[in-house]
């Protein structure tokens, strides 16, 4: 048996017929080709699959695809606009907030939700806000820094982030 599911993902409307047991994360990856949302565990601990569902951070392995009927979804692929990185993406780049990069999309989406509810978080609030995401590479130090920097960049509401050159030379 297959059921219809209609969603808006990163501003585009999609309609698919899916098995009722299909998880939303697999729907995004396998049916929509949005492979930036990753799977890191089977038990909803790691947060690598975090996306925004109607603006709220959701681990997309905790929802069936059919539960997303009529919802507005944002994945990591929808964060950069017109060739310009979202300030959170820019901040992760600037602050070396990633190493292997596998957990990173989930962290960026979780951070996006955190900053939407608390635009100026303290270090402790950032750590608590990201406790649903696991990273095995960075020790979180630079992730916290990235979110702080992003908050600053976004603080000026319309703050223009501007694409920055890949190489920023300078002394230590």
């Amino acid at each position, binding site marked *: 048996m297959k059921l219809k599911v209609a969603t808006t993902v990163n501003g585009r409307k999609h309609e698919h017929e899916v098995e009722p047991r299909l998880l939303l994360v697999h729907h995004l990856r396998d049916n929509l080709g949005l492979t*930036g949302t990753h799977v890191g565990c089977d038990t909803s601990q790691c947060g690598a699959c975090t996306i925004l569902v109607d603006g709220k951070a959701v681990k997309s392995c905790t929802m069936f695809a059919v539960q997303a009927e009529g919802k507005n979804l944002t994945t990591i692929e929808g964060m950069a606009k017109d060739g310009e990185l979202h300030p959170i993406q820019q901040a992760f780049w600037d602050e070396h907030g990633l190493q292997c990069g596998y957990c990173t999309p989930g962290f960026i989406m979780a951070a996006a939700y955190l900053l939407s509810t608390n635009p100026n978080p303290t270090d402790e609030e950032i750590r608590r806000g990201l406790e649903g995401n696991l*990273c095995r590479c960075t020790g979180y130090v630079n992730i916290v820094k990235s979110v702080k920097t992003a908050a600053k960049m976004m603080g000026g509401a319309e703050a223009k982030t501007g694409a920055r050159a890949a190489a920023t030379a300078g002394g230590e």
Partner: protein
Amino acid sequence: MAVSQLVGAKIHRREDPRLITGHGRYTDDLAKQGVLHLAVVRSPHAHARIRSIGLEAAKKSPGVVAVFIAQDFNGVIAGPATHPVAPVFAPDKKTNPPRYPIAKQEVCFQGEPVAVVIAESRSQAADGAQLVDVEYEPLPAVMDLDEAMKPGSNKAHTDQPDNIAWDATYVPWEATEEAFKEADVVIKQRIRQDRLSPNPIEARVVMAEFDSFDNRLTIWMSTQNPHWIRLFVSGALGMGEHAVRVISQDVGGGFGSKISPYPEDYLVPATAKMLGQPVKWTETRTESVQNAYAGRGQIYDVEACAKKDGTLLGMRVTQLLDTGAYIGTFGAFQTCACLLAGGAYRWKAISSRSIGILTNKITTDPYRGAGRPEATHLAERVIDLLAAELKMDPVELRRKNFPDKGDFPWTQNFGLVVDSGDYHGSLDKVLKLAGYDQMRKEQAEARKHGRHIGIGLSTWIEICGLGPGAVTGPATGGVVLSESAQVKIHPAGGVSIYVGTHNHGQGNDTTHAQIAADALGVPMEQIDIRHGDTNEGPGFGYGTYGSRTLAVGGVAIAKACTKVVDKGKKVAAHLLEAAEEDIEFHNGKFTVKGSPDKSKAMGEVAFASYGQLPSGMEQGLEAVAYFEPPNFVWPFGAHVCEVEVDADTGAVKILKYAAVDDCGNVINPMIVDGQLHGGIAQSIGQALYEEMVYDDDGQLRSATFLDYSMPSANEIPDIQLERQVTPSPTNELGVKGIGEAGTIAATAAIINAVCDALSPLGIKHIDMPASPDRVWKYIKEARK
């Protein structure tokens, strides 16, 4: 710093744009038309005999294409060659049970493959796997190392003589007799290093396609060393290496668990060949926690002694190493802990012995640090235990026994030559950074108020940059751990560099480009760094592990660049009508000695290299270099940790963490700091939270991220870092490794701090993880 000088600069990573936008190329992200999905049927028992396997129901399951068991692979996969085992250094005895990708009659760990199901979709493969009906006769599981060593004990493999994988004595006990006779104080301790699950956030994925007309096999997979996998898989499938291509682009972390070959690395290509269709296997997290080669799994029995004045005398160490059901391909590497047991100190004599013990658990293999975290933890715990016995400040005991700066190169007790060091320097610097004297004052004050504050040190050293052929050749069974690089300058000046190392988060696409940009004098943007495709670049690459990527692979790049520049000098001499020995190369320009106005840029030389050249000179501007290091490199540093223990709950909180590390010259400080943060966090995980827990029957109780406790952002403090730079004389870049340093250093600093906090209660030693329940039990016991 001038822009042209990229080495040493904080360059933002070139690999990041695709990773932060969701455009990484991890293996599971790759799509293949008509791909079939493989699911593995695994033993639920740690030890059992297979009585029968019923396949009918699975074969009838919707979407199932094929179901295979061990005998179906006869003549397809040559086992047990699929599980090569590097010889342990000088083993006195070896029981090395053969391993096949699929168990034949006896399963020896929970999760051992019994059958594979291939179906049209991933969920259909999983459904089919559920229907494979295996009848088992359970056998006793060998779990405890002390028990397993006893003569006549249960055996992990019923067809093997016993459970002793090896018993290797490096220096016999008699060598330390004299030292112990002189001793004023002696300590004795058993120190446990429980099993850890590596848990890169990306589990393993393998996809393969076989082209029967061209007899070519392509394997996409998540691995740290594609060339080794090509060597192993091509051999097992009876194909030439030229016909097998392994591609491993973005990999979501490894930490050692993606070095050695796994059963699926053979089963997926073999089934793709058998079915004539591409096949993919994506590991689930539970499969990963259960089957990824585990870290540590060791017990150390140590005795050590010193003179009253703090002069260290002798140490005797026995390492009991739980090999798991099969000896790991590189599992014996962890015996290096026996050669590094003395740490950063001068000892009169050290005796050591390693016993490898087979159990009914998943294999252990190198996990971030592999032997060096264990050695550091051992040496640093021993120093603190002796300091307590001598009533000396642990700082003073360390200072008294360090080799001095002028003692380097320093030959330690096992004859290994430590290339460079300044141990007093990094210790002094970290004490200042942490505010050690003030911390001690505050600790004394806090104790008056009944607070359990502790301060711990770790003045760690490590051996890395694997490694010189004289040592690594025999250890791997013939392949030395050299490293390769190929540099090609194309006619219009673009540069392609192919490396034999791998990048799974270390940022070496960036640091390698920094090295090459300086060596060739071309802008970084003009240089492409390629890794992870065995069809590109030199004949063999040795991979990324053991903090070797920069200290061996980076140097290979520098050497290949030098070869290219040397060829460029010949071409420039021709263009400038000068003698080759009069050509100088600097900042991307070839000039004639004494006539700086006569010059040719690298781009001009590159173009000319593909044109008309004097007779006897070949076209092209490219070179391959292999670098076999003459020695290991020896990073070191000093860490200080301050903790508070809640005596009512046993909870440990890290109040402060400061570190001064020395990895020689630094290519990119931002990346070095990142490696340290991550390494220290992983070590905090081991020290306070992580442990693979099995029950007596060999059932893994910590088989998910729900049950295996890894630190989140809440558990990791801010980490203060400073650096010291003592260049390595081992290579021309003066660099050492930093990928494992944090993990090697930190458990000792944390556990020394916890022990210090609880010392007023008479507690001398605490095993890891110092989790609340365990610490609470120690406190309860001490208060009896």
